[in-house]
C-alpha cells in the first residue's frame, strides 16, 4: 500500500514560529499564501525531514541549521517537523541546541523508519519553481548522470566496465602466452625425437613401442604412465646419465630460445601499438590531463553552484569571469573529458598487454637462470645470453612505467628490437647438441632413452599448453557471452526506461500545450551501442527534429517541460510514496497553461495525495473550485509579526466563511459557495 500523509506538524521552522498542524488524513490540499507568508516553510520542512538538507538553503552564505530555525523561538524550544503516515509510521526530525550547537536528528528512528527514509531520499517528492529547469540546463552527460542517479544506472555502468575489463584481461592473457608458438616448438621436438608430431596418447605409445623395439626389453607401453617404467628398464643398460642431463638442459634452453625468438615479433607488434597510442596522447596531453582534472572541475562547479564563491571571477585564478559562462565552460570541459577517458582506456589496455608479454618472458628467463647447471664454466655464455635477453624484455617492460603526462618519451621500437644477434648463443647450443648427439648415437640405449624422455616431456607440455589455452579460451568465451548478455539487458532496461519516460513526458507536456507546434518530445540516448555517452532532448517542430529544446522553447515552455519531467519521474520512480508537494510551480505560465496544468493534476494524478502551494490568486480560485468537488482540503497561509506563519482557521459555517472571504476581499468565489450550499 503506497504511503500517504495522515498528519503534518511543523513547529519553529523557517517562518513557522509556534506550530501548525495539518490533519490531512491522506487527502490532497491546496494552500494559498501571499509572497512572504511562509508557504515554502512547509516544503522546506518536508525536504529537511527526508534529506537533512534544504537545497536552496545549502550554500556557503547560509548556515542551514540557523536558517531553518525560526529566529523568534528561544533556545530551550525544539524546532520540529513530524509526519504521521497511513502505514503506522511516523517520522520526526528535531533541531535543538546542545552545548550552544544546533543539532539535527531523526527522532527515535527504528530500522523500518531508516529504511523508509533511505528509499524516499531517491524519490521525487517535491518540486519548486526554481528547480524546474534543473535537468534541461544540464550538459548531455550531466543529463545522463542525473537520470542514472535517479534510477541507479551508474551501478549498471560500473558493473559493465568491470565485465569488459575482465574479458580484456583474459583476452590479453591468451595473447601474451603465445600458446601456438609454444606448442609448435614442442611438436618440432616430437618430430625430431620420434619422427611424428603425435597428438593422441595411443599414437605416442605406438611410436615409443617402435622406438624401444631394438632394445628387446621384453615389455611394451600401454599407457603414458608405462613410459617411466620403460625408461627405468633402459637406464639399467649402459645409459650415460651425465650426458643426458647436459643434453636435456641444452635442448630445453634451445626450445626456450626459439620460443623467445618467435615472441620478439609479438612484443614488437604490441609495443608499436602501445607506442602509437602513447604518442597520440603525448601529442595532446592536455586532453588526458583533463581526466585527472575532472574532480577539480566538478569541485569548481560545486563551489559556484553552492555560492562558496559569488564574485564574477574564476574561483581559482580570480580573473574576471562571468560565473554563468564559466559554469558552461566547465561543463563543456567535463564533456570532453568523457571522450578523453575512452582514449585513455584503450591506451591502458595496450600498455597492459606489453607489460603482460614482457613480464611473462622475464619470468620464463628467470626460471631458466635459476638452473644450477648455468654456474658451470661451460655455460657462462648461455647465462650471459639469457641475462642479455632478460634485459631486453625488461626494457620493454620499463616502457610501461613511463608517465605520458609527465612528458616522458618512449624509445622508438627499433631501439628496443630484439635482434638475431641476441640469439647468437642459439647457434653455439646447436653445435654443442650436435656433438652430444653424435656421442649419444654410439650408445643405442642412451639415444633411445633420450628420445623417449624428450618426446614424453614434449607431449605432456603440448597437452598442458592446449589445456591452459582451452581453459582461457573457454573463460574468454563465457565472459564474452556474459558481457554481451549484460549489454543487451542494460540496453533493454534503458530503452524501456527511455520509451516509458519519454512517452510520459510527452503526454504531460502535450496535455498542457495542446495543438502547439512542439510535438513528440523525447529523451534520446547518445553514443555507441554499448557505450552510452549522454542524453539529449528532442522534439518535432515544423516536421524537423530539434535539439536542444532551448532552441525554440520560451521560458514558459521550458518550465512546462520541467513539470512534465518531474511528473513523469514521480510515476516512474516513486515506489514508496504516493504524495507530492508542488510549490509555486506555475509562476511563468499564462492563464491557459495554468488551467491545463491544474486539469492535468486532477485528471492524471487522482490517486496521488498532492500538496499544492501557490500565491497566484486567480489560479487558486480556479483550482479551489475543482478541489472542493474532489474533497481536497483548502486553506490559506498567512504571516503576522506576532504569530509568524500560520494557517487560517477554518470557518465553522457559511456565514463565517462569507465574512472571512469578504474581509479578505475575495468576492469572486462566493457565488459558487453560496450556490453549492443552497
Amino acid at each position, binding site marked *: 500500500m503506497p504511503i500517504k500523509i495522515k498528519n503534518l506538524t511543523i513547529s519553529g521552522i523557517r517562518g513557522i514560529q509556534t506550530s501548525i498542524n495539518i490533519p490531512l488524513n491522506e487527502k490532497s490540499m491546496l494552500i494559498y499564501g501571499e509572497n512572504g507568508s511562509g508557504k515554502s516553510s512547509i516544503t522546506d520542512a518536508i525536504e529537511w525531514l527526508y534529506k537533512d538538507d534544504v537545497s536552496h538553503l545549502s550554500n556557503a552564505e547560509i548556515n542551514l541549521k540557523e536558517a531553518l530555525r525560526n529566529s523568534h523561538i528561544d533556545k530551550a524550544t525544539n524546532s520540529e517537523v513530524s509526519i504521521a503516515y497511513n502505514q503506522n509510521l511516523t517520522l520526526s526530525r528535531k533541531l535543538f541546541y546542545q552545548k550552544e550547537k544546533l543539532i539535527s536528528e531523526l527522532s527515535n528512528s527504528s530500522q523500518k523508519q531508516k529504511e523508509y527514509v533511505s528509499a524516499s531520499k531517491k524519490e521525487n517528492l517535491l518540486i519548486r519553481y526554481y528547480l524546474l529547469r534543473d535537468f534541461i540546463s544540464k550538459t548531455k552527460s550531466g543529463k545522463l548522470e542525473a537520470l542514472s542517479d535517479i534510477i*541507479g544506472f551508474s551501478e549498471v555502468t560500473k558493473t559493465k566496465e*568491470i565485465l569488459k575489463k575482465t574479458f580484456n584481461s583474459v583476452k590479453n592473457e591468451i595473447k601474451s602466452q603465445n600458446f601456438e608458438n609454444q606448442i609448435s616448438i614442442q611438436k618440432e621436438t616430437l618430430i625430431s625425437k620420434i619422427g611424428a608430431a603425435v597428438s593422441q596418447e595411443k599414437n605416442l605409445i605406438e611410436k615409443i613401442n617402435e622406438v624401444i623395439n631394438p632394445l628387446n626389453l621384453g615389455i611394451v607401453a600401454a599407457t603414458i604412465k608405462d613410459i617411466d617404467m620403460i625408461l627405468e628398464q633402459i637406464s639399467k643398460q649402459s645409459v650415460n646419465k651425465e650426458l643426458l642431463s647436459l643434453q636435456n638442459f641444452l635442448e630445453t634452453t634451445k626450445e626456450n630460445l626459439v620460443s623467445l625468438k618467435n615472441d620478439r615479433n609479438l612484443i614488437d607488434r604490441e609495443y608499436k601499438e602501445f607506442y602509437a597510442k602513447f604518442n597520440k596522447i603525448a601529442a595532446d596531453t592536455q586532453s588526458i590531463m583533463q581526466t585527472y582534472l575532472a574532480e577539480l572541475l566538478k569541485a569548481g562547479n560545486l563551489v559556484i553552484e553552492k555560492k562558496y564563491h559569488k564574485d564574477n571571477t574564476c574561483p581559482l585564478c580570480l580573473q574576471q569571469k562571468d560565473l554563468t559562462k564559466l559554469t558552461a565552460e566547465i561543463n563543456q570541459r567535463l564533456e570532453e573529458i568523457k571522450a578523453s577517458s575512452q582514449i585513455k582506456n584503450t591506451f591502458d589496455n595496450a600498455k597492459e598487454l606489453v607489460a603482460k608479454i614482457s613480464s611473462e618472458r622475464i619470468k620464463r628467463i628467470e626460471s631458466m637462470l635459476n638452473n644450477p647447471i648455468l654456474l658451470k664454466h661451460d655455460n657462462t655464455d648461455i647465462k650471459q645470453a639469457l641475462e642479455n635477453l632478460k634485459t631486453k624484455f625488461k626494457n620493454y617492460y620499463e616502457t610501461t612505467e613511463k608517465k605520458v603526462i609527465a612528458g616522458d618519451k618512449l624509445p622508438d621500437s627499433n631501439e628496443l628490437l630484439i635482434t638475431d644477434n641476441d640469439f647468437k648463443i642459439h647457434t653455439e647450443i646447436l653445435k654443442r647438441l650436435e656433438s652430444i648427439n653424435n656421442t649419444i648415437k654410439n650408445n643405442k640405449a642412451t639415444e633411445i632413452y633420450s628420445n623417449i624422455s624428450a618426446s614424453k616431456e614434449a607431449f605432456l607440455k603440448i597437452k598442458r599448453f592446449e589445456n591452459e589455452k582451452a581453459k582461457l579460451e573457454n*573463460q574468454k568465451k*563465457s565472459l564474452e557471452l556474459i558481457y554481451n548478455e549484460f549489454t543487451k539487458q542494460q540496453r533493454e532496461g534503458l530503452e524501456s526506461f527511455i520509451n516509458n519516460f519519454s512517452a510520459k513526458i510527452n503526454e504531460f507536456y502535450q496535455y498542457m500545450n495542446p495543438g502547439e507546434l512542439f510535438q513528440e518530445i523525447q529523451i534520446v540516448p547518445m553514443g555507441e551501442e554499448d557505450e552510452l555517452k549522454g542524453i539529449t532532448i528532442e522534439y518535432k517542430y515544423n516536421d524537423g527534429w530539434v535539439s536542444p529544446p532551448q532552441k525554440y522553447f520560451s521560458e514558459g515552455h521550458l518550465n512546462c517541460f520541467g513539470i512534465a519531467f518531474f511528473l513523469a519521474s514521480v510515476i*516512474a520512480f516513486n515506489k514508496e510514496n504516493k504524495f507530492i508537494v508542488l510549490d509555486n510551480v506555475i509562476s511563468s505560465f499564462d492563464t491557459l497553461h495554468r488551467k491545463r496544468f491544474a486539469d492535468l493534476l486532477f485528471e492524471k494524478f487522482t490517486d496521488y495525495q498532492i500538496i499544492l502551494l501557490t500565491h497566484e490568486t486567480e489560479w487558486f480560485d480556479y483550482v479551489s473550485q475543482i478541489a472542493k468537488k474532489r474533497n481536497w482540503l483548502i486553506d490559506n497561509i498567512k504571516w503576522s509579526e506576532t504569530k509568524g506563519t500560520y494557517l487560517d482557521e477554518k470557518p465553522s459555517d457559511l456565514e463565517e466563511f462569507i465574512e472571512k472571504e469578504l474581509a479578505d476581499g475575495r468576492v469572486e468565489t462566493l457565488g459558487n459557495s453560496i450556490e453549492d450550499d443552497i
Partner: protein
Amino acid sequence: MSEENTVKTGKEILDTFFQSILSIEGVDSEIANALLELYNEGKFTEINIANRIRKIRETNAN
C-alpha cells in the same frame, strides 16, 4: 491514475541479470557461479574476479 511502474531501476537490472546468469547459453557454470557469488557478497571488483577465475583455472589444472 493507476499506472503500473514498469521501469526497472539500475539495482533491479543488476539483480535480474545476475539471477539469470546461470542460464545464459554457452556460459561455463563455474564462471557464472563465481560472478554470481561475488555480486551477492558485494565483492564484484575487477581484482576479485581476476583472482577467482584464475583459481578456477588452477583448480581444474590440478
